[in-house]
């Protein structure tokens, strides 16, 4: 089955991000395909280094992209609204727009939003 995943929370203020990451790992282990992970709202914080003191037990998104080929796209506009620059994005992430999220939704069998 093909999944499109949206993550709407920062990794340091909610378990939503970690739950999404674990779901993706489990889905891939079960043979499912993740078409794209789209980070929106405060979820764009996942694409940038977390504030100091929050480094423990955060989902390793970069590894998912760089080692397993999962496409990670964060909303560039949402990031800019939160003062984030693409110069500071973590490895494996790509900046993009909502159009990429719609595209993934249209191709997916299942769409899941982690808030």
């Amino acid at each position, binding site marked *: 089955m093909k999944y499109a995943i*949206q993550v*709407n929370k920062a990794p340091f203020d909610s378990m939503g991000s970690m739950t999404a990451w674990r779901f993706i790992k489990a889905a891939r282990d079960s043979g499912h395909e993740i078409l794209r992970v789209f980070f*929106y*709202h405060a979820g764009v914080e996942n694409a940038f280094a977390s504030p100091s003191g929050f480094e423990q037990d955060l989902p390793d998104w970069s590894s998912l992209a760089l080692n397993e080929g999962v496409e990670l796209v964060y*909303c560039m*506009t*949402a990031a800019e*609204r939160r003062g984030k620059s693409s110069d500071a994005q973590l490895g494996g992430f790509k900046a993009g*727009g*909502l*159009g990429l*999220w*719609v595209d993934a*939704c*249209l191709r997916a069998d299942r*769409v899941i*939003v982690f*808030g």
Partner: protein
Amino acid sequence: MTKTCLFLINKMPESELILTETLDALLTFSAFDLKVSVLLLDDGVYLLRASAGHATDEHGLSRFMATLDFYGIEPVWAERESLESRGFAPPDATRRPRLLDRRELPAWLRQYAMVLGL
């Protein structure tokens, strides 16, 4: 065949920023020729009326509903029980939504190819 997409809003956006971004998403899905509807559930029904003391101000809320109107995103649905339990009936709302009963929801949701939450 046009895909159907429901935005299910079951809480008040935490900030003006989230409200704006929700609107951005709604408009983007509409631009892709998807049939987009909105369902207000639980505290999401406060989008119909400003809530005192909430981070999202009245101007932002009316702008949200006005923008949905302007771009022809309709219908906006609301769950009857969510409205009633929060003490305001549809005639009090600045925009009258179509009403759904809670018991109708499970079957009604099945018509949508996608249901997206905040």
